[in-house]
Each structure stands twice: as structure tokens, then as C-alpha cells.
């Protein structure tokens, strides 16, 4: 008869049998955390980012990039149903999950700055480095805020994108120098990223002599922005600048098309996602300027075979932040490789130090970081949504027409 005791004995025997097997394992499993806002208003952009990281991991395994190491992705979603977009509280939970799993040696993400602010202190205490492909709020790497975002001391928040300290002001320069805009109304979506970007834009715009006629905030969960848009119409600005992501962005683009025709409209990288085409769509999105805090490379002939590999694997076109996510993962894989080559154990601390000194050839060029974790090459690319009938209407590469690099402050 099967007693509780016999079951216990059998399981312990099995466990004993299983134990030696682990010693013979040829490969060490190294996990790379991936955190993006896969639920909610930015889900499609998040998928592109996540795919970029997954692709790099799978290619590293296929090519045996690091002998004796098998990489595994730990994909976490920081978007929640109740927030309808990214949720910092969920980001904190995800950060704890990564820190709790000792196989995780580094992470890619998060996608959003608001989440980054919640994750950074947890990652810092866990000594776990993360490389964000798209969160651009400057505070996260600013030594002024070291107490908040890296309380354990060493920088753990690296970026393969520039920050809003460039993205906002450089767009303001473009407004003043190229578009000759004289007056602007500024909106944000109350998020950490949106507010910071709008502030940075507004400060530089004022410095450049553009008259800032007003500033207001959009509730991303609200459906109706007609009241604030009517107010803007009355002030009659030449341009509108929006700092924020797509949950509010898509509704703003749709409603401002009706209420504010003829106004120059622009936003940051929060608008450069597929939802701009699939959610807002034409004709509403036509003419909107957006920026990316990274060089524009998805149309670069040199990386077209990568674009083809991405498309073949996921049946989606990558955007520039799929590139920065891929690049971030390459940096981590390179760091693990360098640690493994020294013969030392692949630990979080060792990988963090290796990332800090990285000099890795990636799709966007050679990536290296300054002492705070920021990427050293800071490029802001400007795009304008412009219907191109030769390509599908949701073609993320060709419906955003590349305008050029934004003038540096």
C-alpha cells in the first residue's frame, strides 16, 4: 500500500538520482530578463521591442556565441488591465521577480520610463544591470537622483537610446530653426516620461523665443479631449507638442485632426509606434512629427538582412526601438562572453562591470556607456507621418518618413 512515508522515500530517492545529473550539464543556463508593456495602449510597440531582444537571444544560442552558456529569455509584462497601459507597480513586481531568480544576470528594459523609476531601486539593491532600449527620462541615469534610482551605488540602468534631455530640446530647435514656429501649446499624458519630455521641450522652446501659449495634461484613461482641444483652438497656436505615449496619444491624434486643422503637431518617441498607424491611422496621423532617441537605421542598407530575419521570424516589421532592444541584448551577450572568457563565474556583479566597459559593435553603431550608464552617441531622429501608397498603411518603416537628425541644443 502506498503510504505517505513510502511516497516520501520514493521522491527522495528520485531526487538523489536526479542530483548527479546536474553536475554533468554541459551548459550553464543564463537568463536575460525582458520587460515591456505588452498589455494596453502600447502593446504593439512593446511587441516589437520584446521581439528584438528575443531575436538576439535566439541567434546567440544558434551561433553558440558564448561557449558553455545557453541563454534564456524571461519575458515580463508591466502593462496591466486596470492601468490600460504601463503600470509602475507591476514593474516593481517584475523587478523583484528578476532579482529573485539567480539565473538572471542582466535585463533588457523596461520599455517605459515610468516603469523604470519603479524598477531601478529594486534592481540596484539586487545588483542587477538592465539596459533599456526605449525609456528616455533623464532622471533615471542622472547622478543628481542617484539616491532614488541607484541607492546601492553603482549604475545599473544603461541605455541604448538617448534621453529626453536631448529629445525634447532638439525638437524645439527644429521647431524654431527649420519649421519657424512662433507659438506652441504643450500637452502631456501625466506619465513620468510624458511630463519630463514636455518640460524639456517647453524649456528649450521658450529659450528659442517660441511663445508657449499654455500647458495642459490629458488623462490617458479619459476618452474625450474635446474640451482642452477647443481651448487650444481658441488660443490659436501655430503648433502643438505632445509629450506622452500612445494610450492618450492615439485619441489626441484622432480628435485634434477634427478640431485643430492646419496646426503643426509633434510628439516624441512615445508616438513612433505601430499604433500611430493602426490606431490613429490616416488621415488623422498625416503630418504629425515624431522623434526617436536613436539613429534611424531600419532603412539602412547595411542592416537589411537583419530586417529580413526579423520579418521572417515574427512576420512584423521592426522599428528603431526593435533595433535598440536587439542592440541592448547584444551588449549583454558580449558582457557575458567577456566574463566567461576570463574563467570567472558569470555573476550579476561581473556582468554589470562588463556592461559598464562595453564597446560593442551593434546595428546602430558602436555602443559604449558613460559613467552614468547613458549611451555616448546621442542622436535624435525626426520623422513625419506621411502616407506612402506604395506600402501597406501599417508599414512602420515606410509610413514614417525620415526627416533627418534633429539639431543639437
Amino acid at each position, binding site marked *: 500500500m502506498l503510504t505517505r512515508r513510502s511516497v516520501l522515500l520514493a521522491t527522495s530517492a528520485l531526487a538523489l538520482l536526479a542530483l548527479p545529473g546536474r553536475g554533468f550539464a554541459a551548459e550553464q543556463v543564463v537568463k536575460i530578463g525582458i520587460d515591456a508593456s505588452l498589455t494596453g495602449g502600447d502593446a504593439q510597440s512593446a511587441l516589437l521591442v520584446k521581439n528584438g531582444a528575443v531575436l538576439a537571444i535566439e541567434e546567440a544560442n544558434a551561433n553558440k556565441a558564448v561557449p558553455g552558456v545557453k541563454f534564456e529569455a524571461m519575458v515580463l509584462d508591466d502593462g496591466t488591465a486596470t492601468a490600460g497601459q504601463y503600470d509602475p507597480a507591476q514593474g516593481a513586481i517584475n523587478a523583484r521577480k528578476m532579482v529573485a531568480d539567480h539565473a538572471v544576470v542582466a535585463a533588457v528594459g523596461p520599455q517605459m520610463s515610468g516603469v523604470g523609476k519603479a524598477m531601478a531601486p529594486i534592481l540596484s539593491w539586487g545588483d542587477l544591470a538592465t539596459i533599456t532600449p526605449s525609456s528616455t527620462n533623464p532622471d533615471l541615469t542622472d547622478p543628481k537622483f542617484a539616491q532614488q534610482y541607484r541607492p546601492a551605488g553603482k549604475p545599473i540602468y544603461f541605455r541604448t537610446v538617448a534621453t529626453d534631455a536631448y529629445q525634447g530640446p532638439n525638437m524645439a530647435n527644429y521647431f524654431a530653426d527649420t519649421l519657424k514656429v512662433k507659438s506652441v501649446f504643450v500637452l502631456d499624458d501625466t506619465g513620468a516620461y510624458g511630463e519630463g519630455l514636455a518640460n524639456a521641450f517647453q524649456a528649450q522652446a521658450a529659450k528659442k523665443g517660441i511663445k508657449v501659449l499654455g500647458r495642459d495634461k490629458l488623462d490617458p484613461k479619459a476618452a474625450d479631449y474635446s474640451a*482642452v482641444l477647443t481651448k487650444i483652438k481658441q488660443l490659436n497656436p501655430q503648433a502643438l507638442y505632445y509629450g506622452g505615449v500612445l494610450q492618450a496619444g492615439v485619441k489626441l491624434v484622432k480628435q485634434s485632426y477634427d478640431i485643430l486643422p492646419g496646426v503643426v503637431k509633434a510628439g516624441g518617441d512615445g508616438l513612433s509606434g505601430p499604433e500611430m498607424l493602426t490606431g490613429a491611422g490616416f488621415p488623422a496621423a498625416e503630418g504629425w512629427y515624431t522623434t526617436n532617441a536613436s539613429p534611424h537605421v531600419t532603412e539602412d542598407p547595411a542592416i537589411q538582412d537583419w530586417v529580413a530575419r526579423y520579418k521572417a521570424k515574427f512576420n512584423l516589421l521592426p522599428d528603431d526601438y526593435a533595433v535598440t532592444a536587439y542592440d541592448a541584448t547584444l551588449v549583454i551577450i558580449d558582457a557575458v562572453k567577456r566574463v566567461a572568457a576570463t574563467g570567472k563565474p558569470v555573476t550579476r556583479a561581473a556582468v554589470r562591470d562588463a556592461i559598464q566597459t562595453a564597446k560593442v559593435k551593434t546595428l546602430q553603431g558602436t555602443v559604449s556607456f558613460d559613467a552614468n550608464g547613458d549611451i555616448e552617441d546621442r542622436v535624435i531622429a525626426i520623422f513625419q507621418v506621411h502616407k506612402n501608397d506604395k506600402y501597406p498603411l501599417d508599414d512602420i518603416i515606410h509610413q514614417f518618413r525620415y526627416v533627418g537628425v534633429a539639431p543639437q541644443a
Partner: protein
Amino acid sequence: MTAADVYLQQAINGLSLGAMYALLALGFTLVYGILELINFAHFNVFMVGSFVGMWALEAFGVMPGGAQQAGLPLLGVLLAAFGITMLASGVLGVAIERIALRPLRNVRGPAAMITTIGVSYILFNVVLLALGADNKNYPNPLPAISFPIGGAVLRLREVLIWAVSLLLMGVLVWFVQFTRLGKAMRATAQDAEAARMMGVEVDRVIIAAFFLGSALAGAGGLMFGLYYNFTSYIIGFTAGLRAFTAAVLGGIGNVPGAMIGGLIIGLVEAWGGQLISASWADVIIFSILVLVLVFRPAGLLGRLTPNRA
């Protein structure tokens, strides 16, 4: 735009919002009037209604970004879409009552109200998991006709919202005032026990209240989609909370109160956004609610109290 134009435009904006809130508020008020139950599932019946409306329109060949229609075909499609949406939403409301609330009818305390919150989240998550989190583009057959009034613009979709809301509210008032079932509803609202003794089938009355309220919410959901050109699993909460506020502001359980409350909330949201800031909309709305309740605890028009004359 002159200042007068701006106020007119914001009134147009606010009345459109308010008409939608009013339709939703009626559902809270009908159910509360009869069961003294705040039905939070109503939030997401509205949301489901907007999806049903989307499918109904697509079933008639209207696609997102597709061609606009005019004349009789447009009228026919809209009538059919409203009919299907209201019927489906009404049935959903009745099903919620039958499955989740009737077993709790004689349970004292907040059990039933908590259950409605649970049902609300079930609807919310089912739609999220089944249909995904992204905003769905709404099929819209309405031609982009607009009428300039001075510097303000009145669009066809606003006219449509007002017309449909007025019509539905008119039908509801007529129903409650003059039909047998409507009279039974009022009798039950005044005193369920006495109504039962007089031969009113209270179960039928409750089913009618859920059906009517949910059908109106469904119509509101369809109008939401036509007005904003999108729908999403998340739209129920903001609209539902404002509509609930409208119902309380007007006097919960009171049908004209819900309509007036809805319009006031809509206008406050629009003018508040103009005069102060859009980001303060909720603060303004709820401050007004608190003020009204301090001075008139039963709401502007008062609870529907038993007429003991």
C-alpha cells in the same frame, strides 16, 4: 474664435458627453430605484455594448476606415445596429441579474454590490483576454458633415447623439409613466412588499429594470464608438464612474434626475477644461458632487420617495 464661440463650442462638447453620461446614469438609477442596489456591472455592460455595436456594424458591411454612407441605407444600418446592440446588452443585463444577483437578493449587507463589482471585472477581463488590449478602430458610416455656428462647429455625430439620447429617454419616460409594466416598476420602487401584495410580479419588474438599463447602456456604448471612432476594454470605468456620479448628483433612483445629472457633469467637464484645466476635470466634478450632497443629501431632484399623499 470669439469668447462666445468658445463657450458655445464647449457647450456642444459638454452636451454630447452629457447625453452619453445620462443614458448610462439611467441604468444605475433604474436598478437602484427598485433594488436599492448600486450595479457596478453596468460600467462594463456599456463597454460590451460598444463591442456588440462594432460587430453589428461590421456585420452590415461597415468597416473601420471604410466608405461613408448617406440617406436611407445609413438610417437602416444605424437602426439595425442600435436594435441589435440594445437587445444584446439588455439580455446581458438580465443574465447578470439572473445568474449573479438573484441568488443574493435576500442576503443582507453589501454582498450583492460586491458581486456586481466582481461581475464588472469578469466582463472587463473576458473582453481583454478574448479581444486584446489595443484600441479597436470603430466602423463609422457617418458622413463628416458639420454645420458652422459662428466660430463654433456642430457635427452630424453630435446631432445624432442628442437625437438618439432624447428619443431613448423620451421612450423611457413614457414607458415608466404610462405602461402597465412601467407603473408596476414605480409601484415596486415605492414599496416592493406592498406592490407584491397588490399582485405586481416583482421578478418581472426587476428583469425589466435590468433589461432597460442595460439596453440604454448598450446604446450609449455604440454612440461612444461612433463619436470617438474607437473602443477598448477599458472605456467602461471612466464613463461609468462619471455616469454614476451623475445619477447620484441628480438623485439616485430618480429618472429625470439622472438625465439632468448627466448633462450637468458633461457641461462641467467641458467648461472646467476651458476655464481651469482638463487635468482638473475629475477634481471639479467630484467637488461639485460633494458640495451638492452636503447641501442636498438626496441629490438635486431628490430620491424618488414614496408618494404618501
